[in-house]
């Protein structure tokens, strides 16, 4: 029996580069940085005072302020992106959608409602448990309410839960959603990741782990994947989701297909809680499995959207890519880290980067790695340094790796 093909028919993105996919894409093509000083909280005494904040987000564009109080920011981003994704798939009108029982949602987050947890803990201390804790506290913070709220707003009654795998959450969600459609459990899935962790605990936690860049005097230059003088990742926030549909049902309704999801793999390093395995052994296995799942040779891949966080791990990922792609990595394979522009969206990263891959295939344009003027000698691939460029690419691969040694690779094909 042949496997059911998967169509990507819509995307929704909110990022430090803009409030839609189009705005974000423009930023990527301009090689613009979305990083700036943190305005959300007082960063006095914090080692890191910069991040990629989403600017001018108004949730009441999408839903009334009654609902705003019921959701942490990470859920607000997810619901907003679900409206964008359905609109981009031509499915804003409920009557145009498949049977709601055949439509599901897999949208996850790495941390969940940390902003609301912190604020509520403060008010619990100040006002006591009776008046200090909102009855909406739990549904506002738990990860699966991103998927749950999306189902409520659009009446989607199929499979509904959240995968959580740190910085590979978004990619795993997309891959597992594809599997769900392949199995025949749904015809349409909204899938991706969302995150909002620019808060004292979020920044403090990654600071304590020495994971964040402290290039506070140069926000736009702080996220510099593959550079010799990179010094850590820069936290971003936002959401990236896509509408996946069975190729057959998408074609039957006359959908505009953006790209095809042809390969997916998930595995683990079983090596260390935060550090990747030596030479990216786990990542190599993951990419190989995804290519095998897609039924293609490494040489057919023209573009990789790297995990590329601007940490020591960039070297490991480079080695892993060389291990999988061999001579093709030296010539003909373009690799870029868009985190150089939108920062690291943690659980949302895999979602937004999957959407970026699809747009790159559709438009034949590759987003650059900015701030790359003096590469690490061990990082010697074609990273599309600093300037976007045209490229005729048939297959693109997106890597996401997370704390816990978890890996995900997605392979998309031009439609």
């Amino acid at each position, binding site marked *: 029996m042949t496997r059911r093909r998967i169509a990507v028919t819509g995307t929704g993105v909110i990022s430090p580069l803009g409030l839609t996919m189009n705005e974000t894409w423009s930023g990527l093509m301009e090689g613009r940085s979305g990083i700036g000083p943190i305005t959300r909280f007082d960063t006095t005494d914090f080692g890191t005072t910069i991040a990629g904040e989403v600017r001018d987000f108004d949730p009441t564009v999408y839903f*009334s*302020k*009654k609902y705003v*109080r*019921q959701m942490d920011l990470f859920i607000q981003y997810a619901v907003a992106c679900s409206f964008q994704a359905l609109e981009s798939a031509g499915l804003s009108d409920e009557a145009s959608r498949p049977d709601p029982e055949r439509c599901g949602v897999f949208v996850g987050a790495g941390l969940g409602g940390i902003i609301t947890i912190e604020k509520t803990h403060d008010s619990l201390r100040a006002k006591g448990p009776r*008046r200090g804790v*909102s*009855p909406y506290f739990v549904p506002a913070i738990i990860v699966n309410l991103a998927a749950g709220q999306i189902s409520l707003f659009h009446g989607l009654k199929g499979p509904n839960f959240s995968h959580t795998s740190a910085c590979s959450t978004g990619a795993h969600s997309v891959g597992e959603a594809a599997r769900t459609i392949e199995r025949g459990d749904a015809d349409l899935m909204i899938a991706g990741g969302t995150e909002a962790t620019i808060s004292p605990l979020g920044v403090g936690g990654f600071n304590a782990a020495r994971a964040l860049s402290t290039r506070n005097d140069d926000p736009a230059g702080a996220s510099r994947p593959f550079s010799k003088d990179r010094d850590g990742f820069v936290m971003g926030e936002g959401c990236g989701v896509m509408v996946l549909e069975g190729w057959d049902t998408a074609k039957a309704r006359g959908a505009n297909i953006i790209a095809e999801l042809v390969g997916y793999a998930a595995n683990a390093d079983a090596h260390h809680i935060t550090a990747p395995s030596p030479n990216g052994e786990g990542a190599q296995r993951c990419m190989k499995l995804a290519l095998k799942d897609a039924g293609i040779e490494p040489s057919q891949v023209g573009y990789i959207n790297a995990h590329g966080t601007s940490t020591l791990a960039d070297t490991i990922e480079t080695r892993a890519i060389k291990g999988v792609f061999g001579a093709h990595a030296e010539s003909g394979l373009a690799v870029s880290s868009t985190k150089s522009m939108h920062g690291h969206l943690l659980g949302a990263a895999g979602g937004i980067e999957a959407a970026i891959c699809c747009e790159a295939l559709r438009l034949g344009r590759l987003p650059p790695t900015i701030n790359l003027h003096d590469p690490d000698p061990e990082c010697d691939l074609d990273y599309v340094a600093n300037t976007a460029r045209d490229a005729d690419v048939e297959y693109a691969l997106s890597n996401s790796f997370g704390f816990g040694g978890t890996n995900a690779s997605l392979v998309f094909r031009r439609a």
Partner: protein
Amino acid sequence: MSAEVESQIIEIICEQLDVEASDVDTSKSFMDDLGADSLAIVELVLALEEKFDVKIPDDEVDGLQTVGHAVSYITQRLG
């Protein structure tokens, strides 16, 4: 005093339930007319407690089903 309490309560209801003052009068039911669910009523009660500095026991919350119930309950407690 009752009229003043009523207008203060309606203001809180509008804020909490995201409804217009013109849609709120003492006959309106929180759940049936104003779109509240059980969690919204808990939040509304907390807001009323804070505003009027009273404690509303949980077993008395069940009796507050309409705007009128809330107005007379608060008025009585303040009196």
